[in-house]
């Protein structure tokens, strides 16, 4: 019997070593695998290269990993945000390296890694600083820059439901980078609210097939869902919503 589910987030992140490249899903807080990141912090693995769209928000999740001094380099499209003070400080102090990639090239490079594409020509970024030094080719009268795949040793992804074969479905815009990162990493680790019985995910609706997933771990219903129903919960800044008033 295939069973990719593991008992704890610490089991899920076992083996991540110093110097690993780790893709972390999420766009801002949506789809950020906070419990897996916390487990990664607990391993103490350092000199990590992190691939994420952003560079952490507030003091939790990816920001906490940065604050812990475990990150040598971050590959992302949009580090500077109103609440990215942890990254901002480290970057200004020269303590973290930044590779800035336009978001669509970031997504396509990750996709290419999973899809076995050796390189691709993209129109995005041509004529800008972010294509400096890249090979440019004119195709059908338009200029394109050559971009290479972006691979990782590990991917940490947040899904909604998974089964023991590793099939995953996501929730709303928390899907974002999860499916392509799961396909681009040697070892892909997915946290979900619940691991469900094999056969309870409709084959028409599976977004990440189990072939891309090595480990799944249940972390319990997200705070704003109870018994599968939306109940409010936290606001976009991560503050708990206890009453309707809190939601203002």
């Amino acid at each position, binding site marked *: 019997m295939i069973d990719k589910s593991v008992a704890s987030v610490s089991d899920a992140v076992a083996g991540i070593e110093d110097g690993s490249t780790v893709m972390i899903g999420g766009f801002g*807080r949506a789809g950020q695998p906070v419990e897996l990141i916390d487990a990664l912090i607990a391993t103490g693995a350092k000199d990590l290269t992190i691939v994420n769209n952003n560079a952490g928000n507030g003091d939790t999740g990816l920001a906490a990993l940065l604050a812990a001094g475990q990150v040598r380099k971050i590959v992302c499209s949009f580090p500077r945000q109103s609440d990215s003070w942890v990254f901002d400080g480290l970057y200004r102090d020269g303590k973290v390296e930044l590779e800035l990639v336009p978001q669509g090239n970031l997504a*396509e490079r990750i996709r290419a890694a999973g899809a076995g594409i050796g390189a691709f020509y993209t129109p995005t970024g041509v004529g800008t600083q972010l294509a400096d030094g890249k090979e440019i080719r004119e195709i059908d009268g338009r200029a394109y820059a050559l971009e290479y795949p972006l691979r990782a040793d590990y991917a940490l992804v947040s899904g909604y439901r998974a089964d023991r074969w590793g099939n995953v479905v996501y929730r*709303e815009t928390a899907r974002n980078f999860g499916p392509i990162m799961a396909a681009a990493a040697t070892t892909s680790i997915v946290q979900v609210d619940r691991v469900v019985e094999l056969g309870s995910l409709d084959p028409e609706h599976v977004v990440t097939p189990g072939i891309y997933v090595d480990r799944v771990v249940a972390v319990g219903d997200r705070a704003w869902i109870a018994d599968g129903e939306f109940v409010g919960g936290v606001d976009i800044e991560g503050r708990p919503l206890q009453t309707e008033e809190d939601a203002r």
Partner: protein
Amino acid sequence: MTELTRITRQDLAARIAADIPEGAFVNLGIGAPTLVANYLPEDEEIILHTENGLLGMGGAPEEGLVDPDLINAGKQPVTALKGAAYFHHADSFAMMRGGHLDVCVLGAFQVAQNGDLANWSTGAPGAIPAVGGAMDLAIGAKDVYVMTDLLTKKGEPKIVEACTYPLTGVGCVTRVYTDHAVFDVTPDGFRVREAFGSNTVAELEGLTGLSLGGE
């Protein structure tokens, strides 16, 4: 020189909204352009795209229904309309890069008369660079509309002969909506499409130092 007419940010958003036809697929970027959504006619169907994986984005959620999994590119809480669709990031940017969006509306530091856009970096030393999806939108949408004040706070024109700030995209802007006037980007440079209030082409040429093709 008399004071020129300037319309408010809200009126500018409404002006842009009026140019978006029913059935269009539209991305409103982040920041001020998102105001345009408030002025789209309620009796028409215009489908909003957000780069983080949603077509058919709706407005802000009602009280108590903020859902942290459902956000826009600016990471603000939104809703999904009937007829919406979610997809992953590679699919979302394939949609943008592949030229499927009819319109995107972006902010700008500068727009050049050949349509070059600079909106992601001032190039200031020590600033932390961040680009997000701006470069994909700039080269991807069929029409790239810029929404901006005509002048910076220091009074410098933001439509220029050539950008001095780092570029976001080359020759990509099709129209610039400013507080003073609307400009089309044409093979001959900027042309005034609509001057607000009593503004004249000559006055706008005076402000910008550009030839705007006034008769």
